[in-house]
């Protein structure tokens, strides 16, 4: 749906942001890395000295800065209706440094949304710990923004009110707001509206600011939800199949929107999807969760593990989807993660034994 011109403009902007990031010595979102096995991801990524010393997956030597997101030995289970428990996540290890766009894929029901809820803090892990910037996750908080597939917008607020909802909560008491309304309206409120409109312009919805969400199409609603989350400047943006209900054209346009926001705002993104192409296209790191694995003795495993953790071939163009590297990676993920008849023994992919904790 996005016409070619618009696409090219966006791609140029992404490339520019990437160059700027590279100049700053940060990891560029563009990195055409060879596909590597789980565990050596960081290493292959940017010549991190940690590799040479055989450091555990995701280990970085950024002078003790805690990773923006870390899961240590995380297992999670749910009670079964028939009694007992179903193990959903089995010993998940994950380290996400800043400015990474991590896509999570896996077969339906493998626990992607569960992992996202644990990262979000709307559920606590049964075992193990989840930390964000070194602080234990206990509750959904401002530093982790979220876009769900549905129900991200408040039906009783207009598009603009939805976007500035979080800003309006900031700092001011309701009574104080009412008592000083004539002044407040011209200062704080006006600034919030201006900021909200600016974010709406970036998702090209400024003309619809005064409509209610129900009056927008599904794609427009998701764009509002993205603006609503981004305006809070979260450190991590979590998304659970945000484009799952959209048609392919709208989907591609929104993929570009989010990649652009990522490149420009320097945030970290945790993106859950069941669409492999989408995952590889938007992300610069791909995490495959799967329940299709076996113990080393051949008995089948319980719960999902990270069976693959690789860099994505990156390019600033949607044409990358046609490249052989892109397609090979997708084939590989299909086999390793999605094929119940192809069960990898745990020793071939799991390096968590080497991890600390």
């Amino acid at each position, binding site marked *: 749906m996005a016409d070619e011109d618009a696409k090219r403009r966006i791609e140029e902007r992404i490339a520019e942001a990437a160059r700027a990031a590279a100049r700053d010595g940060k990891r560029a979102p563009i990195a055409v890395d060879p596909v590597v096995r789980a565990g050596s991801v960081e290493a292959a990524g940017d010549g991190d000295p940690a590799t040479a010393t055989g450091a555990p997956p995701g280990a970085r030597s950024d002078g003790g800065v805690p990773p923006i997101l870390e899961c240590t030995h995380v297992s999670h289970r749910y009670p079964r209706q028939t009694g007992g428990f179903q193990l959903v996540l089995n010993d998940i290890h994950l380290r996400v440094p800043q400015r990474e766009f991590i896509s999570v894929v896996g077969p339906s029901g493998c626990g992607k949304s569960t992992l996202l809820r644990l990262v979000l803090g*709307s559920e606590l892990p049964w075992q193990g710990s989840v930390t964000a910037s070194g602080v234990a996750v206990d509750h959904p908080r*401002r530093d982790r923004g*979220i876009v769900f597939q549905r129900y991200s917008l408040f039906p009783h*607020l207009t598009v603009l009110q939805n976007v500035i909802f979080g800003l309006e909560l900031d700092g001011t008491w309701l009574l104080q707001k009412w008592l000083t309304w004539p002044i407040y309206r011209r200062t704080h409120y006006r600034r919030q509206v201006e900021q909200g409109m600016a974010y709406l312009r970036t998702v090209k919805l400024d003309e619809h600011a005064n409509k209610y969400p129900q009056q927008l199409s599904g794609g427009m609603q998701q764009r509002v939800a993205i603006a609503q989350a981004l305006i809070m400047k979260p450190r991590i943006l979590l998304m659970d199949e945000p484009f799952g209900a959209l048609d392919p054209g709208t989907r591609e346009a929104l993929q570009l929107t989010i990649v652009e926001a990522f490149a420009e705002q320097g945030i970290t993104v945790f993106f859950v999807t069941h669409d492999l192409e989408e995952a590889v296209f938007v992300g610069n790191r791909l995490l495959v969760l799967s329940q299709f694995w076996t113990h080393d003795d051949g008995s089948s495993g319980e719960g999902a593990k990270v069976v693959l953790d690789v860099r994505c071939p990156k390019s600033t163009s949607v044409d990358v989807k046609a490249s052989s590297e892109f397609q090979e990676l997708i084939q590989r993920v299909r086999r390793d993660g999605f094929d119940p008849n192809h069960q990898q023994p745990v020793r071939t992919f799991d390096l968590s034994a080497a991890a600390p904790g």
Partner: protein
Amino acid sequence: MSRIVGSPLPRSTRLLLGAVPIAILVIVYGALSYQRHLENPMDRLMPTVEQLWRGLGEITTADRRSGEVWLWVDTRASLVRLAKGMGAGVGLAIVLGVLTGIFSTLRALFLPLVTALAKVPPLALLPIVFIFLGVDESSKIVLIALGIAPTLTSDIVLAAAGVPREMVVKGYTLGATTSEVVAKVILPQIMPRILDSIRLTIGPAWIFLIAAEAISAESGLGYRIYVVQRQLAMNIILPYVVWIAILGVAMDLGLQALSRWLYPWAATKGH
């Protein structure tokens, strides 16, 4: 018959159609009453239009002894009781319903009780209320409140529990505290549904009001109907009944208009 899913009728057609059964009712009544009075000029069960007119005059002019206009005095007394009773019942139901709808512990604690109470016919509570509170004003208000609160509460519990969890989580990630989530995310979006539920309790509230007034009161629409019943004054009872219907419809339309005015977004379903 036309299909169930049809295009809505134009407003004028709807109003006209709605007036037809009412007109038929009035005409049939007029004919029957005329007929009965031909047979027995002293008939009191179906007063003629002229007698009704006189009855209406009687209740809308100042009483010779007290100088009071019955209809206004009774209407005011009844509406005040209704407002207080419904106010208390609605307030109680909103607080209880929203809290139990949101917090699962409270739900486990209170829902069985509320569900059981909702099954008790409130009129069975009337003697209990009268015994505990005496027969004055407060007991009538309490009866109305107790009568409507349980069903209203279970309605509101459902509405509050039906707010998608995603929205609550979203509220927190936008920096809201728990009370802000309740006040700015949950409550505003269930308000239209609460107003709809309140509209449905107007009927029951009138039942409890009239019942309480019939048993003990010095004024009120229910009181008057039961007093003049002893004199078989149908020409006064009927205008009162019609007046109660008009008041009920007006309250319903009023709440509907209030809901549309306060919550314009609720009308924007779909595209």
